[in-house]
């Protein structure tokens, strides 16, 4: 896998009139929006709720189509997605949930091997035959993380996947994400409104404006190396203060 970057050029998007040009008085989510996501890095889009973060992910994935502008994805054959909720099929076991999304890409034996490998990595090797209803919320989200990484994609998009979890679990899962990510450094784009999460995971942080049409109001390269990121690091604290003032003003 040779992950590439993502480039958004002059994107225009509106929900009310997606197929035509912008009309007067219409709420425009993005207007001539540009963004460059570096390859093999975790980039974070930070912004308040309802500022268009998820819309941006859907445009990058191709679920939503902008009515002008282009999305360039280098060396990209597939995109993986990690949602706010685990979105596991309740009638399939943990391993069947992962194997299903690999069907198009691998033969049965390979699928089983990949699934087993990722379940071991997330510490749920003994739970492969369990149904989602038999797992805790945190375990289910771990399975969703394993599914996102098991999918042979060059890019991983994440839509606030740790939002609904308690602080301890959130920390464990963000650490788990980092552990998995370090293995193949896939281009990852993570949207969140949580500053601590952004600092812990992001190599680059983009701050999105709270008013429409959304614009990038800040772009920061995280000065703290991944293995040294913790809440009490002075550099992280400085960055947190800056990001907090950007979001509150």
């Amino acid at each position, binding site marked *: 896998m040779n992950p590439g970057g993502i480039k958004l050029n002059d994107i225009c998007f509106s929900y009310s009139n997606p197929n035509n040009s912008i009309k007067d008085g219409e709420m425009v989510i993005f207007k001539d929006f540009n963004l460059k996501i570096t390859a093999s890095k975790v980039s974070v889009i930070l912004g308040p709720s309802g500022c268009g973060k998820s819309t941006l992910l859907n445009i990058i*994935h191709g*679920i939503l189509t902008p009515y002008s502008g282009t999305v360039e994805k280098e060396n990209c054959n*597939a*995109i*993986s*997605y990690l*949602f706010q*909720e685990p*979105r596991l*099929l*309740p*009638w*399939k076991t943990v391993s069947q949930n992962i194997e*299903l*999304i690999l*069907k*198009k890409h691998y033969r049965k034996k390979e699928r089983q091997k990949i699934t087993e490998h990722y379940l071991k990595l997330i510490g749920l090797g*003994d*739970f492969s035959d369990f*149904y989602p*209803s*038999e*797992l*805790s919320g945190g*375990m289910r989200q771990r399975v969703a993380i394993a599914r996102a990484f098991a*999918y042979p994609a060059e890019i991983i998009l994440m839509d606030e996947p740790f939002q609904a979890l308690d602080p301890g679990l959130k920390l464990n899962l963000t650490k788990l994400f980092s552990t998995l990510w370090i293995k193949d450094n896939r281009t990852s784009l993570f949207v969140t409104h949580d500053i601590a999460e952004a600092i812990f995971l992001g190599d680059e942080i983009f701050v999105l404006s709270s008013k429409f049409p959304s614009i990038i109001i800040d772009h920061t390269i995280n000065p703290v190396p991944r293995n040294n990121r913790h809440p009490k690091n002075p550099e992280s604290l400085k960055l947190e203060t800056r990001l907090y003032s950007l979001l509150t003003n």
Partner: protein
Amino acid sequence: MKGFTSTNKRLVGSKLPARLCNRKLIGLLSTIILLILWKVISIKIDAAIILPAPEDVILRLVKITQNRKFWLAVGNTTTRTLYGFILSFSAGFITGIACGNSSRINAALSPFISVIRTIPVMSVILIAMIWFKTDIVPVFVCFLMIFPIITANVSQGIREVDRSLIEMASAFKLSKYNILFHITIPSIIPFVLAGVKAAVGVAWKSVIAAEVLSQPVKAIGTGIQFSQMNLETSEVMAWTVIAIILSRISEFIIELVINSRKWRLSN
């Protein structure tokens, strides 16, 4: 975690058998009370032609089951019910999927389905007797009576499929075939089973009612009609008990499927 889950299940499960026992006991008691009431009223009326005693019905039941023709009648009625059910289920399933997926097809078919739902069973039987041979009439009536039930349940199931799971499948570029077989169909199974449970009783009732009027050779309905013509009330009731037993057996099988462990776990 494994231990924790199973302990929890055991705690929840420990109260269940007691509750079930309680319910079964109440059911048994009410049956005994009903039988006593029946016996008392039959003594009071003192006319077997109007209300035979319960033991007479049981004796007649034992007697008719000893006849080879009885088993042929049960076999024929069961086969007709199965034919009607399978045909109606297949047609209702496909129509339900079409109606659930397309509001236009739903709008186009809903007037017909409403008419079928409200049409009196007797009218259907009488019309079918004009159109078809006596053997086919019960199958056709069964088909028509349960078709709206299956269609309505399947189309409702389709409309209730979790959109977030479809979104997930699309995000991972799952094929339409995989979405249908791994997401849509498993999602609608609870609705289909509820429809089947509601339809199975209707299927038996409509087949036997059609048999009473159309009189095919060797059938439960024919047996009921023949006994009624000979004023053998205890035999009419014995045939009725057999119909109830058959209907209950099929409902029991469906309940077994609904309550199976795998099914409960996955939902």
